[in-house]
C-alpha cells in the first residue's frame, strides 16, 4: 500500500512550491561485493547464473565479472549439474529442467569462498489478463494496471511483476501476495510509481507475471519499501535480505513465468 506515497506526492505537488534539484553528495567509500544472479523458470532451459561485482555509486564504468567460478545447481529430485561458463560472468545449464514444486540448490565456488542458495518453484498460477482502468485525477488520466489471476485457496502465494513500457524495462519492484485477500481473482492494481514514467493512450505495456517463493518476495518487497519515499523518506534503506549465504548480494529465484501485453486505451 503506497498511500503515503500518493498523499505526499499529490500534496506537495499540488499545493506547495516544492522543487527538486540534483545535488552533489559525499559518498562513503564502498566495499565491492560479489553479486550472484540465478534464475530457473518453468520455461525451457538453458537457465543462467551470472556472477559480477558491485561498483561505487558514482562510477559509470562496467561491472567486473567473475568467469572462473564453479557453479552447480541441484534439485530435490536428485538431479545435479555443473554449469558451463559462457564468458562475461555467465554460466548456463545444459540438461536441468525447471519443474514446479521442486527446490533448487545453487552452489558457487569463487575466490576460495563458497556461496549457496535455495529456492522453490511454486505451483504456477495462470495469468489470465491485464485489466486497465482509467480515472481522471486533477485533469490528468491516471492508469491503474490490474493483473488478473485466480489466486488459489492455499495461502502463501507471492507474485512478482516485471513491467515494460513500449519495450523499455521499468526499474520498479512490483510485488503482490495473498496476505489480505486469499483465494480470489486479483482485483488490486499494481502500485506503479508514476513519478518518472507516464502512460499515454496507445502505449504498449508488457507485464511478466512470476510466481515466486517467500524469500524472493521478501527481497523484492524490501526493495519496494525502500523506494517508497513518503514524507521524510521511506523505510531506512539497507541491503535487502536475500537467499544467498556467505554475504553475497543478489538473488537466486526459481519461478514460473507468463507474459501478457496490452495497449493503453
Amino acid at each position, binding site marked *: *500500500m503506497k*498511500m*503515503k506515497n*500518493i498523499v505526499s506526492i499529490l*500534496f506537495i505537488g*499540488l*499545493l506547495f512550491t*516544492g522543487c527538486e*534539484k*540534483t*545535488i*552533489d*553528495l559525499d*559518498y*562513503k*567509500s*564502498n*566495499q*565491492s*561485493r560479489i*553479486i550472484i*544472479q540465478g534464475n530457473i523458470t518453468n520455461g525451457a532451459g538453458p537457465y543462467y547464473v551470472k556472477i*559480477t561485482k*558491485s*561498483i*561505487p*555509486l*558514482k562510477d*559509470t564504468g562496467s561491472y567486473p565479472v567473475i568467469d572462473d567460478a564453479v557453479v552447480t545447481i541441484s534439485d530435490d529430485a536428485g538431479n545435479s549439474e555443473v554449469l558451463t561458463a559462457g564468458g562475461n560472468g555467465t554460466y548456463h545449464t545444459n540438461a536441468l529442467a525447471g519443474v514446479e514444486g521442486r527446490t533448487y540448490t545453487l552452489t558457487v565456488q569463487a575466490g576460495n569462498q563458497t556461496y549457496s542458495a535455495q529456492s522453490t518453484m511454486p505451483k504456477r498460477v495462470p495469468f489470465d489478463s491485464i485489466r486497465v482502468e482509467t*480515472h*481522471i485525477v*486533477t*485533469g*490528468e488520466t*491516471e492508469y491503474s494496471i*490490474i493483473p488478473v489471476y485466480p489466486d488459489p485457496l492455499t495461502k502463501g502465494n507471492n507474485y512478482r511483476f516485471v513491467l515494460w513500457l513500449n519495450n523499455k524495462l521499468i*526499474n520498479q519492484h512490483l510485488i503482490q501476495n495473498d496476505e*489480505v*485477500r*486469499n483465494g*480470489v481473482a486479483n*482485483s*488490486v*492494481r499494481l502500485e506503479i510509481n508514476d513519478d518518472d514514467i507516464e502512460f499515454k493512450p496507445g502505449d504498449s505495456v508488457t507485464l511478466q507475471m512470476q510466481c515466486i517463493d517467500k524469500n524472493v518476495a*521478501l*527481497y523484492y518487497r*524490501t*526493495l519496494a*519499501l525502500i523506494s517508497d*519515499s*513518503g*514524507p*521524510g*523518506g521511506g*523505510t*531506512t*534503506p*539497507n541491503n535487502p535480505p536475500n537467499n544467498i549465504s556467505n554475504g553475497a*548480494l*543478489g538473488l537466486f529465484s526459481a519461478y514460473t513465468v507468463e507474459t501478457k501485453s496490452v495497449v493503453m486505451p
Partner: protein
Amino acid sequence: MYKKLIVTSLLLLLSTTLLLAQTKYTVSGTVKQKSSGETLIGVTVMVVEKPTIGVITNEYGFYSVSLPEGNYTLRFSYVGYKQELVPVKLESNVTVSISLVDESSLREVVISSKKDNDNLTKASMGTEVLNMKEAAKIPVVFGEKDLVKTIQLLPGVKSNGEGSNGFSVRGGATDQNLILLDEAPVYNASHLLGFFSSFNSDAIKDATIIKGNSPAQYGGRLSSVLDVKMKEGNNKDYQVSGGLGLISSRLTIEGPIQRDRSSFMISGRRTYADLFARLSSDMKDVKLYFYDLNAKANWAINSKNKLYFSGYFGKDVFSVSTLFGSDWGNATATLRWNSILNSKLFSNTSLIYSNYDFNVGFKTNTSAMNFNSHIRDLNLKQDFTWYANANNTVRMGFNIIHHTITPTKAEGTDIVNNKKSRKGLESAVYVSNSWKVSDVLNIDYGLRFSIYNVLGGGLYNIYKGNKLVDSIKLADGKFGKNYYNLEPRISASYRLNSSATIKVGYARNTQSLHLMSNSTGGSPTDAWIGNSYNIKPEIADQFSVGFSKSLNNNAFELNTEAYYKTMANQIDYRDGADINTVPDIESELLFGKGRAYGIEVLLRKKKGILTGWIGYTLSKTERQINGINSNQWYDAKQDRTHDLSIVGIYTLSERWTLSGTFIYNTGNAVTFPTGKYVLNDMVIYQYGTRNADRMPATHRLDISATYERPARKRWQGSWSFGLYNVYGRRNPFAITFKENKTNPQKIDAVQTSLFQWVPSVTYNFKF
C-alpha cells in the same frame, strides 16, 4: 532489591520532612485574571515578611500557604500582570482570592518564566512554560501561530523535519512525548501531514514542556511531557475573537453562562486552500482540508467546588475523486471536578475520553479496500495536592487508563484477513513532595508505580528470534501478562548566590504504548500498539545537571543543562517488514537499547525593546538493536549534532512589532547507497553502515511584522505580515536516487525541498 531501597528511603524522607515542620494557620485562595475571570496558573505568591516563603498557583489557580499566627503581606506577581500586595491578618484559616490586572501593553518575554528569577528558585529541571500571547509573535509558515512550532525552537527539542509537527526530545523518538490537552492524551498532534499542529492557539491558555524530568504525576512516555491547557472562557463578558489567514481562519466565542460563576468557550478553525483549488477545473475532484473545534465550559458550584468540561474534535480529510479517500483525527473529552477539601488539601478528579482514528480507502471499478486503525482510551485520574506546610507540598494520586487499540485493519471486497482489537489497562499510583529544605536548597522527589495489564479478547503470539513459538488465546476480560515498574524521580536545586543556581536530577520513565511507524517522518497511518508478550515497557533513565544564572539585573537569563539518558526495550522493524499487510506485526519487530547525551544552552533576554533567546544543543543519540546494522551501535535517525535557534522580537513602537527567527541544524542521520549492481537488468543500490550519512544541514531565516491598529470602541484588530525562508534556502526534505535520464549508467542524487519564500498575511480581531 535496589528498588525497595529507593522506595523505603523516599518514604522515610517524605515522612520526616512532614513531621519536622509545625504550622498554625493557612491562607489559601484562587487567583484570576481581572478582565476575563480566567484562572491564572503559576502566579507567584510571596510572603513579604518572610521572603523565603513563597508558593505558586496550581493548574487551577489555587494556592495555599501555612504560617504562624501574625500579620503578613502577600505579594501576587505574574509576568504581564500588575503586581498586587494584600495584607493578611492570620488568626485563623483565611481565604484570599484575588484578580490581577492584565498589563497588555507590557511586552516581556516570548516564553516567559513565571517570575523574574524563577529558574533560580525552583528544583524542576528541563521545564519550559509557553505563554501563547507572546508565542503569537514568532513568525511561522503560512502565518498560522503554532504552539508546537514554537517549542521546536527550544534547546533539546528537535523538529522531525521542515513542515513537521513531530518532535524529538533529548534523542527520544516522536512517540515518546506525552501530549496532553486538558489532561487527555492526544495521539496524533498534527494536521495536514504535519504542517499544522492540532492546537488552535486561540483556544490555548498555556503549555508546559518537561524534558524527561517530569514530576511523578506524569507518566507513560519516555522523553517528555507537553501539557497543554485550554482557555476556560471569559466569565465577565462576551467576547469574539478570530483571525483570517491565507490558508485558514479561526473564530472563538467566549462568555459567561452565569456571570462570575460559569463560562464557556468555543473555538473553531478550518483551512480552505481546497476551496480555492476547487475553482480550477483540474482540482475540483480533490479534497484536502482540516478543521478542529475546541469547546470548554466551567461552573463554580460553590466557592469550594468547580466543574470543568472540555472537548476537542479535529479531522483531516484528503480525497481524490472516488479513487482514493482518507480521513483521520482526534477526539478528546475531559470532565473535571476541582474541590478544595480544606484550606490545605486540593483535589482534582478527572474522567477522560480520548480517541484517534485513521481511515484510508481505495476504489477501483471492481473492488474497494479500506484500511483503518484506532486507539480509544477511557481514563480516570485522581490527584491530591496537600499544602502540608510552608516548606512541603505533597502531591499524590492515581490514574487508570483502559486502552482499546485496533491495529491497521483491512476491510473490503474479498478481504479475508482481519485483525482484532486489543485491550490493555495502564495504571499508576504516585506520590511526590516539593521540599524547601532551606533558603538555598529545594528538593522535589517522588515515586510512581506503574502497571500495565495485557487484557484478553484476542490472540497473542510469542516469538523468539521472529519465529513463532507459542500462541495464547486470552478470554475477554482476562488478565494476561502484567508488567510492573517503579519510577523514582528526584531533582534538587542549590542556590549558590543571589544570581546563580545549580541543579541535579534523575528520573525514570516507562512507556507501554508504542507507535509503529516505518517512515522517517510521521504519517497518519502510523498505528499504536500496547505492551504484549513480546513487547515490554520501554524504560528510560535520565541523569541531568544544570546551571542557571541571571545576568544584568534579571534582564538576561542563562540556563544550561547536560543530560545522559539510557533507554531499554526500544523497538524497530526487521528488514522488509510491510506493516500494513503482515498478519501479526509482532513477528516483524526487533528489540534493543538506546543512549542519548547532550548539552543544552538557553540564553534569554527578558527585558527591553528587544527580547528573545538563543538556544543551542550539542547532542548525540544512538541505538543498538540485534538484527540491525550487524548488531553494532548506530546513530538514530533523529541524531543531530548541532541545533541552533535564535529568536528576536523587537518592539518598534506601540503599534509595530518586528520579529525574526533563525535556525540551523545538522542534517538527520540517513543511509545513502554506497554502491550499485545489476540484477536481472535492473540497477540495485548497495548499502553500508546504517545511518552513517547525513542530510545536508538545514538553515533558514523567517521574519514577521505585526501592526496593532488603534482600538475602535471594542474592536481591536491587528495585521501580521510574514515571510518564511527569507533568503530562499532550499532545505532538504528528502533525497532520492535516480538513474540519469540521458545516461542511465549515472546515478543522480535528487533533493526535494518544500518551501522557498512563503509570504503570509493574517488579520486578527477581537471585540
